[in-house]
């Protein structure tokens, strides 16, 4: 479980996060949603240590990440898998080398063991046989899937996804969403997804935290989100004509 308490983060005079707290449980898909500039990605980066919050704590199963030294943080980071918005695959490496990279760095497995793991991960994201391709030869959806394969290569306890559906067509978005949900349930990972994709919210949002102007405005599940009468949340969730029509109909 990951617990955040009273997270504050500013960039100059701009206070982006204003005291956010919450708990993200393992085995379910936790979503952080909100409009552009609401602080979702900043919160995610504070959780994984790419930003340092001015105040507050981030606890990974009882270990306060904000209080640890560099070496102790590295130990937690080895338990983290991350899917970046732009996939962040290493350009100079093939798909196979990308997925094998953390295994090369942190395990003493033989080459065949590592290759088995790479093939397992590729198989898991339905990209078997794509080992020798370079990132430049992949489509956006394939890059995301390789990103997921790399993220799960080390069997992470915690999985973070930053806008996993951005730039993808609706069908591929659903494939990626389902993949994240399946992996979360299968390996009981604590998964935190930052998104503003309403298909993801309604499809895989077991726990949803809604941010607005740097504050937590609402939390609940995808079953509860349609029934709320919070204006800011409704403005966000039912912004599109399709969602508005769906709400009116049902």
């Amino acid at each position, binding site marked *: 479980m990951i617990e955040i308490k009273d997270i504050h983060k500013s960039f100059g005079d701009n206070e982006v996060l204003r005291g956010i707290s919450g708990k993200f449980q393992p085995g379910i898909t936790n979503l952080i949603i909100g409009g552009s500039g609401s602080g979702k990605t900043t919160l995610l980066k504070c959780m*994984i*240590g*790419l930003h340092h919050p001015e105040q507050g704590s981030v606890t990974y199963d009882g270990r306060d990440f904000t209080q640890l030294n560099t070496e102790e*943080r*590295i*130990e937690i*980071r*080895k338990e*983290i898998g*991350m899917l*970046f*918005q*732009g996939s*962040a*695959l*290493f*350009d100079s490496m093939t798909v196979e080398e990308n997925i094998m*990279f*953390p295994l*090369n*760095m*942190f395990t003493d497995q033989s080459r065949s063991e590592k290759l088995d793991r790479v093939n397992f991960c590729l198989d898991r994201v339905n990209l078997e046989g794509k080992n020798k391709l370079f990132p430049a030869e992949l489509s956006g959806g394939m890059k995301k899937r390789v990103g997921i394969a790399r993220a799960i290569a*080390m069997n992470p306890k915690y999985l*973070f996804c930053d806008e996993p559906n951005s730039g993808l067509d609706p069908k591929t978005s659903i494939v990626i969403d389902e993949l994240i949900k399946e992996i979360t349930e299968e390996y009981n990972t604590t998964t935190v997804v930052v998104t503003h994709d309403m298909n993801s919210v309604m499809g895989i949002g077991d726990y949803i935290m809604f941010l607005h102007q740097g504050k937590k405005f609402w939390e609940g599940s995808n079953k509860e989100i349609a029934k709320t009468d919070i204006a800011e949340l409704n403005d966000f969730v039912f912004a599109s004509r399709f969602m508005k029509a769906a709400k009116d109909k049902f």
Partner: protein
Amino acid sequence: MNFTNFGRYILLLKAAFKRPEKWKIYMKAIFQQMDFIGVGSLGLISIISTFIGAVMTLQIAFQLVSDFIPKTIIGSVNRDSTILELSPTISAIVLAGKIGSAISSEIGTMRVTEQIDALEIMGINAPGYLILPKILAGITMVPMLVIISMVLSITGGYLGGTLSGAVSPTEYIQGITTDFNPFTIAVALVKAFVFGFIITSVPAYEGFYVKGGALEVAQASTRAVVVSCISILACDYLVTGLML
């Protein structure tokens, strides 16, 4: 570089020189960088050095037109200028343009496409993995390139001088072998070592802290070359002052 940048540069170097997670992976990266910096620059350095040597001989011959000065001086002056200044400094400035911009662009692009964040999330010391192999390759390969440059520049001087008739082969060879002080080679290699460090570490710093997109990567690349060249010239003066 202002003091803030210099402080951040030192802190980045401190992080880069931390113990590697796995030497085997780093060794592979070091050899790749040696190939890129050393073998990849050999052609360019060879062409530049040969022509500079030839032009230097012609210019020295043009300036020394007195009957009281023996023509063997042309070889001696060319040799000392090449070893002490031209080969280390000109090679370093050319390499700062070629390698420095490539290093800055590579690391800068990795920064803006979140590849460096990905390394850090994996628990890898990004400065160590990305910068240390480049610095180690730089401080080993630049001195080797400078040695090759010295040989080719002096050879170029021989070819340029004899083909143009500015100096005879015997006079030139007598000139380059008379009163040779081996300490000049040591000075040149110290310079090459320092320049190799600058050529790799300064662009790596500029690339590592890029913020923004393609435009900022390009700006960082330009800044890397400019700062490297100025640092090379400043260190050239410093090393020369200290050692000669």
